[in-house]
């Protein structure tokens, strides 16, 4: 009896072909064919688009020739001024019809070509041979021109929708460094990246995701820097995505990551273009999605979650110090409550005498054992934090921290907990904010609960054993073939220049080695030369 049948390794998933998403039942294929009659085409359009109020159909006659034409576009996705001034106007007023076509039967195809080359002042012009192709373009904000007698459509880009505008990314604020962040429009985001790196080798490839959503996704890399195998693997994994719609890169992340059962994220998420481009130059691939301001960066190592762009913009000592602080902070954030429980409940002999006496004094009135007290306070704090996340920015932050401390103080006075527990919770909370990457911070915060449970059962021995178990797990994770704990294990000397201590710029002359050493072997990592080792 197999409970979970699906392989947890995305390498084994079947590739989902994009063509399937466009599949339409056969009987409808007939009706999707383009007819030569404008009215009929329009009727088909209207039938397919339903009664959508935002679809606009405009019939008109082409210049002086009297040939019927029509344009179709979706209001809201397009720039009306552009359409009126630059499409309708020239087509209606200014089309120059060659003298040879003044006979009663103008050649519609030639006309089509004339329009395309002389009277359609748009860049990015395409032709569509069937209605469903045309629909896709329509939904992307393009305009469809139907000419009577011609069995194809002319598509032009008239995009113009309202966008949030480029602001500072809320999830990754820096003191020093650029403050632009990605927005929800894919084109704007790729532009931000292009502006920073003018290398013609910067490749931006698109792929469409989702059966119904048909959202545009882009994967970006720098040819010549990235390992070709990595690009192929990214492509392959993206093609396995088979869902209705992808709303945010988070969904992509969960589908393509190596191990979806673990607590720890294996893909980096960022809103910052400068971080993205820096990673691209180190040989990684960025994945972006239309309608999502978050870009994914693969592959990732664990230590990258502790890096912030500021480390590079400031002097090397500051950067190194900041990183050291973050690593210590994350250790504190995950283990402080557990250590408190272990020391207080199991090994009071190891705490300095005065501290022991003061802890014993303050705990004398507390009805719960240290473990229950710790769990209570930690859960309360998590509740506060989660609640604060829903409130508007300014209020939310204040309420979680200040509220936590005030409630803590009240709890001490009520005799429910001891003051030292409040200190422990405060240290944990503050230390967990220090991690720049949100998903890693959540992982570190979550891991402290099992630590507490083990500490309550076996004291420091339990804590150490569980720490070993976590290390084994981390060491075993791979992100797109790269060992998760590089460059510490396996030891890659060169990469240590950017590890905890950030060496001065002058000394970092080579790209990190770990990403070239990408091992894309599909075999189980333990198979060395065919035998299990």
């Amino acid at each position, binding site marked *: 009896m197999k409970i979970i049948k699906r392989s947890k390794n995305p390498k084994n998933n079947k590739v989902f072909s994009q063509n399937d998403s466009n599949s339409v039942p056969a009987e409808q294929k007939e009706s999707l064919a383009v007819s030569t009659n404008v009215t009929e085409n329009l009727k088909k359009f209207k039938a397919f688009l339903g009664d959508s109020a935002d679809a606009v159909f405009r019939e008109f006659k082409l210049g002086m020739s009297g040939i019927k034409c029509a344009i179709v576009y979706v209001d809201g996705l397009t720039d009306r001024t552009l359409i009126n001034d630059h499409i309708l106007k020239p087509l209606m007023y200014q089309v120059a019809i060659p003298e040879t076509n003044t006979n009663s039967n103008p050649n519609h195809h030639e006309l089509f070509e004339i329009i395309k080359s002389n009277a359609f002042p748009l860049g990015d012009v395409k032709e569509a041979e069937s209605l469903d192709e045309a629909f896709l373009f329509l939904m992307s904000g393009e305009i469809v021109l139907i000419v009577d007698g011609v069995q194809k459509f002319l598509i032009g880009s008239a995009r113009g929708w309202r966008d949030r505008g480029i602001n500072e990314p809320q999830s990754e604020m820096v003191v020093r460094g650029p403050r632009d962040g990605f927005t929800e429009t894919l084109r704007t985001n790729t532009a931000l990246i292009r502006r920073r790196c003018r290398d013609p080798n910067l490749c931006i490839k698109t792929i469409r995701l989702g059966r119904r959503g048909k959202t545009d996704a882009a994967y970006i890399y720098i040819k010549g820097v990235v390992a070709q195998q990595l690009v192929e693997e990214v492509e392959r994994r993206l093609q396995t995505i088979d869902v209705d719609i992808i709303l945010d890169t988070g969904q992509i992340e969960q589908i393509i990551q190596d191990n979806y059962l673990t607590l720890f994220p294996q893909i980096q998420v960022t809103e910052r273009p400068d971080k993205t481009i820096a990673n691209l130059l180190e040989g990684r691939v960025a994945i972006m999605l239309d309608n999502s301001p978050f870009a994914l960066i693969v592959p990732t190592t664990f230590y990258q979650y502790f890096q912030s762009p500021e480390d590079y913009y400031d002097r090397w000592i500051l950067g190194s110090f900041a990183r050291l602080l973050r690593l210590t902070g994350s250790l504190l954030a995950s283990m402080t409550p557990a250590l408190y429980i272990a020391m207080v409940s199991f090994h009071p002999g190891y705490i300095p*005498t005065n501290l022991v006496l003061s802890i014993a004094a303050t705990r004398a009135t507390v009805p719960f054992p240290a473990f229950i007290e710790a769990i209570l306070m930690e859960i309360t704090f998590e509740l506060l934090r989660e609640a604060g996340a829903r409130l508007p920015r300014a209020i939310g932050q204040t309420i979680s921290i200040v509220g936590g401390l005030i409630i803590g103080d009240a709890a001490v006075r009520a005799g429910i907990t001891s003051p030292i527990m409040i200190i422990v919770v405060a240290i944990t909370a503050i230390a967990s904010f220090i991690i720049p990457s949100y998903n890693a911070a959540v992982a570190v915060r979550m891991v402290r609960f099992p630590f507490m449970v083990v500490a309550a059962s076996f004291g420091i021995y339990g804590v150490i054993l569980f720490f070993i178990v976590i290390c084994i797990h981390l060491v075993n994770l791979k992100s797109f073939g790269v060992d998760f704990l590089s460059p510490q294990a396996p030891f890659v000397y060169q990469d240590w220049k950017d590890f905890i201590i950030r060496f001065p710029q002058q000394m970092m002359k080579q790209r990190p080695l770990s990403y070239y050493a990408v091992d894309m072997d599909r075999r189980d990592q333990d198979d060395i030369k065919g035998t299990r080792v």
Partner: protein
Amino acid sequence: MLKKLCLLTMMTLVSLSLTGCWDRTDIERYAFILGIGIDKGEKDGIVVTYQIALPQGIMAAGQGGGGGESTVEIKVDAVNKKNADQKLLSKTNQIPNYSHLQVIVFGEKLSKEGIREHLDFFLREPEMRHLTKVLISRGDSEKVFKVKPKNGDSTSQYISEMLEQTQRFSLSVPKYVDLGMLQRKLAHPSDLLLSKVSKIDDMLSVEGGAVVKEDKFIGWIDSKQAIGYKLFPITLNRNI
């Protein structure tokens, strides 16, 4: 299938063992013994005085409260220290904890008969800190523990801190001996100079020293001799 089976077994075993927590004792249930005094009792027995910390008293005193005892002394008659420990269990509702022992004081009379066998009990406990200082008191150690320092510290901590700071600044107080040093010296029989504590007018003084020859106390050295001793940096083994 095998993998699932062993995963299941592992989880069961681990969750069963998680319910145990054999060693978990919360900190407030401990009676922290800060000082032990051993005196000669009747008929070959000893009288052991345990100075147990009352954390709330210590905290209150520390915050300028005053009032409220910071320690409580419990006297036990017994044959030897292990026996005394057993008897202590029946006299307090908390679990004795020796890991914060500051001082061990031997009474004068008992030291004359030999301290080695009593020291042995201390040295064998794995919980013992090696920083516990050993002293010999003039008269009975019981009296020493009855003196309560005015600043609210417990007697044991007071003595311990006194010895530590006189190390550097005072000439008439010889270097103190702690359990760690004793452990090494007792490997071969040797002579020791232990610290001396005496009660003078309701206050404690650690001036001078106590000479111990082959585990028997033989006499005091006063402050002048202590100065002389301290000025010559020679180890005791070669001295007497």
